[in-house]
C-alpha cells in the first residue's frame, strides 16, 4: 500500500466513528478491511458519577503517533486513526477510538489491537473516578493485565 494515513488527536470532544472510517476509505479502493475499537466509560454498579481524564499535553499525541508508526511498519496498513478524549467523561460516553485500515483483515485486527495495547500502557493518560455519593475521587490503578497484554506482540509471527 501507499504511505499510510495516520491521524492522532487528543481532545475533549466526542468523535464520530462513521466520519473517521470515511476519512480512511473515501476515494480509494485498496482498503478491504477496517477494524475499529471504541473504549467506553463503564459503570456496572451505578456508583460512578464521572471519570476525569488527565493527560500530558506535550507527550500524549507524540507517544500515540510513535505507537501507530510502529504498527504501520509491522503490518501493511493503509491508515490509522486514534482519538483519545480528556476531561470529564460520563458513564456510557466514549473515551478512546482506534481505527486501522488494510487490504487484509488480520492486519487490520492486529494493527488496531496492537495500538490499543500499547496506548494503554505507554500513552500518558490517567483516570480519576468521582462517585455518585459525592465521595472523593480515586485514581484508577494500572492493571497487571495491561502489561501482560503486551507479551503477545513479542512472539515471532506465525
Amino acid at each position: 500500500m501507499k504511505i499510510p494515513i495516520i491521524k492522532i488527536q487528543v481532545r475533549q470532544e466526542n468523535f464520530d466513528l462513521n466520519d473517521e472510517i470515511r476519512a480512511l476509505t473515501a476515494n480509494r479502493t485498496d482498503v478491504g478491511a477496517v477494524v475499529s475499537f471504541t473504549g467506553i466509560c463503564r459503570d456496572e454498579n451505578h456508583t460512578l458519577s464521572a471519570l476525569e481524564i488527565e493527560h500530558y499535553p506535550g507527550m500524549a499525541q507524540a507517544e500515540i503517533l510513535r505507537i501507530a508508526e510502529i504498527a504501520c511498519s509491522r503490518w501493511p496498513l493503509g491508515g490509522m486513526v486514534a482519538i483519545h478524549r480528556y476531561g470529564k467523561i460520563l458513564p456510557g460516553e466514549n473515551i478512546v477510538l482506534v481505527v486501522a485500515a488494510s487490504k487484509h483483515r488480520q492486519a487490520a485486527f492486529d494493527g488496531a489491537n496492537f495500538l490499543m495495547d500499547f496506548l494503554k500502557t505507554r500513552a500518558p493518560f490517567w483516570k480519576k473516578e468521582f462517585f455518585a455519593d459525592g465521595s472523593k475521587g480515586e485514581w484508577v490503578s494500572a492493571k497487571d493485565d495491561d502489561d501482560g497484554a503486551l507479551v503477545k506482540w513479542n512472539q515471532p509471527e506465525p
Partner: protein
Amino acid sequence: MNMKLVYFSWIRERVGFSEEEVNLPSDVKTVADLFDWLRGRGEEFEGFLQQPDIIRVALDHVHADGREASLSGIKEIALFPPMTGG
C-alpha cells in the same frame, strides 16, 4: 542545569503543584541521581519516591530508558505513575 519538572496524577497532587523550574546540581546526571536529589527536597518528594519502581519518567516527552538514562541536553522531565488511559 536549568530544568523544567512536570508532575501528573497523584504525584502532582502529593507534590502540590504541576510544574516547576529547578536548577539541578551538575552531579545530577541520570534519572537515579534526580531521584536522590528530589528526596532531599522534603517529605512531599520523599513520600512517593519510597516506591521508585512505580514512578515513570519521561525526558522531553519520551519515556526514559531506565534509571541510568542520561539527563544531558534534556529540557523537561516528567514524573508520573503508571498510565491508565484507553
